[in-house]
């Protein structure tokens, strides 16, 4: 596993940090999309990680650069746009897929301009969600290479 170092800070020593390979991170109140994704991608090498809170997801997205983040907007209606902004600021290459309700559909552009790669209102058919997540990870997960790499900070 390649190791990188955090930039030196005034408050503490330099901490070695490991980057993990991208995964599908699912943020939802009750397990639904996680179940769908896990059952559909059970045979693949893709890792599906549920997140309990936006903070949890941010931490994981930072450790697993270029991950696909499936975000259920109805679970965190007031926090999701902020979360998308923070994912953009973090420059961890996360690819957020937002799943909203029909009432939240008018906010599609707000979500997209905050970095959402996919936006569905209402939720898409299960197979479409699986296909999209697979597709978004396909270009990132190589079969030949063995090392994870850090995201390119812009």
């Amino acid at each position, binding site marked *: 596993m390649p190791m990188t170092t955090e930039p030196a800070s005034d408050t503490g020593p330099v901490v070695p940090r490991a980057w993990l390979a991208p995964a599908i991170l699912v943020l939802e109140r009750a397990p639904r999309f996680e179940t769908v994704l896990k059952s559909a991608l059970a045979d693949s090498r893709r890792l599906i990680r549920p997140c309990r809170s936006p903070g949890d997801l941010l931490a994981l997205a930072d450790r697993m650069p*270029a991950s696909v983040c499936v975000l259920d907007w109805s679970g965190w209606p007031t926090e999701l746009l902020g979360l998308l902004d923070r994912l953009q600021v973090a420059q961890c290459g996360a*690819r957020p897929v937002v799943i909203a309700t029909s009432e939240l559909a008018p906010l599609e*552009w707000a979500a997209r301009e905050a970095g959402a790669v996919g936006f569905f209102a209402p939720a898409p058919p299960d197979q*479409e969600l699986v296909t999209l997540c697979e*597709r978004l990870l396909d270009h990132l997960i190589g079969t030949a290479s063995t090392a994870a*790499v850090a995201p390119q900070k812009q």
Partner: protein
Amino acid sequence: MSTPSPATDAAVVGPAGDRRPHASSRRLWGWLLLAPAWLLYGLLWCAWGVGQTWRDRYPLWERLFHIPAPAVSVAGLVLWALCAGSRHRRAGWVAGLLVAWPLAVVLFHDNHWLRPSHSPATVNSDRPLRLLDWNVWHGMGGWDRVLETLDGERPDILVLAEYTPGDPDQFEHHLESLQARLRSWGWKVPHTLYSGSLLIASRFPLTHSERLRLHYSDCVQVDFEDDSGTPLRLLAFDLPGGLWGHRDPLLRKVNAIIATTQPDLVVGDFNAVRQATQLQSPPPGYRHAYDAAGSGWSYTWPVPVPMLAIDQCLIGQRIEPVDYTLGTGASDHRWQRLDFRPIRSDRNPPPRVAHADDD
């Protein structure tokens, strides 16, 4: 005053004398018909000529610049035919000389008739991607017919302008039927995006989408990743209608947006002719898809007699054009279809990251 000779009398009252007054009266009537036609054509030709000379530099001349050359050519040819028919040879020659300029513009400047040959920039032999851009005229030609046309083309990336199918409920219903159609083409996930009157649909995930500010216009920037992971950036425009406004300042802004955002493809209903000063000199690295890979009648509006090329498709340096075709469907605009291959850049390969389980 001399008295008429018998021979002259014979000429006046004889068969020849019968013809002459008849012929001269016919010439007179001919001139009475031709004079207004000449007056109208003279005015039209002068206005068009002034427009071509001053082009779109000033608002007043820009209105004249939008007089379509095919209309001036056809009017001139009709006048020439009238002159030839009424045996006004000299007038016919003048009409022929006048019509030569607009006709040359139509035949040799605005359109070219042989498809430009190009050497492939890449060894990429993948199936070319297909982009279709169409102003669907608010569905006034019939949505079913619009969908039929789309069915025939089956693009990978679809840009529709003036896509306004009724109230929100009708819109939702229509969008669903469009998405069902996209799925029937084999699109696993139809990625659709709607802004103002612009609809963008893609077979590929939209990795980034942004609305750009441009007065009274819809302007959307979308980033894709094709199946091989090659990033693509599309800029779609729907600029305000009406050719009577001064468009040069707006087109300067459009060029500035293109230069800043560096898209690979720029498409849309510009409502500005391809011959406009700003569109004749697009930002460095960009060219018209028609010039690069198209041929034939390049005008796109108004169907059924398109005489102005106001729908544009510009391509950047990372695009290898394969084919550019214009077609007619259920709208007052012709659709434009570009088949292309993205040129993969080795300098910016798509990031490849291994899975944690690999080792």
